[in-house]
């Protein structure tokens, strides 16, 4: 009987050790955030599995790398498959901050405080065909986007002050503001993620980070 206890205790400690190691691996992954290939984006033909190093001698990869999402989703790939495809409707260009072990609220964002919906430069919304956001007609053009998150809803602002760092917003240049509900307990996103999903009336701009998801409806 005593041997059995010893055995169980030993297994428990072994399990603890394994858990500890995994924590370390996770930390490492957080500190070296740029990793792995993806199924959807390619680089050049036949690129082997690669890891981008930090402390790159010439140009570090930004800790919050830039990305862009089109509507229709993956429009550039669709275009090379179908040259006669209709023009794209819109796209967002944004930088993708990541949690790195922090909780989104209140360690990164504060309720009621303006957030650039990204990192670095102000997040950009390009409208290629006229759309309607919150009952306001949005003509073709370039805009910036920012949010004022609150516990139950986020206020999303479309603004026409462009090409600027995302820390300073001029509400006087807002084109429209829309309140959208936010849900929690969704699958946790390590990196802030924006993608468009098709809806019956147009598209939703999905904004997901940590376990929070907000959707901005766009009528097309």
């Amino acid at each position, binding site marked *: 009987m005593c041997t059995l*206890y010893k055995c169980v205790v030993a297994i428990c400690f072994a399990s603890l050790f394994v858990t500890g190691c995994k924590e370390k691996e*996770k930390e490492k992954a957080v500190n070296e955030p740029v990793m792995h290939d993806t199924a959807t984006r390619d680089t050049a033909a036949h*690129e082997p599995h690669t890891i981008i190093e930090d402390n*790159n*001698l010439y140009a570090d990869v930004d800790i919050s790398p*830039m990305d862009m999402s089109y509507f229709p989703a993956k429009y550039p790939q669709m*275009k090379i498959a179908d040259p006669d495809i209709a023009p794209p409707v819109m796209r967002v260009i944004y930088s993708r901050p*990541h949690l790195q072990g922090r909780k989104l609220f209140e360690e990164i964002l504060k309720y009621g405080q303006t957030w650039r919906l990204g990192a670095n*430069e102000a997040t950009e919304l390009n409208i290629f065909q006229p759309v309607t956001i919150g009952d306001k007609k949005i003509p073709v053009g370039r805009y910036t986007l920012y949010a004022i998150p609150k516990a139950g809803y986020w206020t999303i602002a479309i603004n026409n002050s462009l090409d600027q760092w995302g820390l300073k917003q001029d509400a006087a240049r807002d084109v429209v503001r829309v309140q959208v509900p936010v849900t929690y307990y969704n699958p946790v996103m390590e990196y802030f993620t924006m993608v468009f999903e098709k809806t019956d009336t147009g598209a939703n701009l999905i904004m997901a980070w940590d376990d929070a998801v907000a959707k901005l409806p766009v009528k097309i």
Partner: protein
Amino acid sequence: MKRVFLFLFFAFLSTSVLNAQHWAPVDKSPLDQIYFPADYPSLKIKGTKEPLRMRIIYSRPNKNNRPIFGSEIVPYGKVWRLGANEATELNLFTDAKIGGKKVPAGRYTLYALVSEKSWTFIVNKETDTWGAFKYDPSKDVCRVTADVKALDKSIESLTIDLEKSAGGVNLVAGWDTVSATLPILF
């Protein structure tokens, strides 16, 4: 007591399983943008009066110890997207002159036809496309050939710099051990 240990054992087991979480990966050739004037977004919130001229939006592949030019990554004599993923995009916010040709403000794509001694930069009208897979020369706006310059040190990530020149901007593209320059006048 035995039950407690067993409970603990399974508790630890489940924690280690939960730790095996998969996070959304970041692109291995991250997107980047470069403005002229350089760092324009930062300058703008500090109140710069300089006019915004242009921007390049491109993905930055890495060398990763691979041979780049003349290899299967950037073969000689084939049009290359001068980046990764989507075709590299050139935004002109004012009219410009490239290779002696007037190019009105607008969105364009930028490609390069690379050989050992020279690169031909190509400005094209077809935007929002993926790579150079469906590159269409009939949509070219202009082509400019530039000599290849050998670099002392290798550049790990493809880098496009916009440098001030006498009449405008020199677009300098460098990767691995070479660079080439496309002059743009305003």
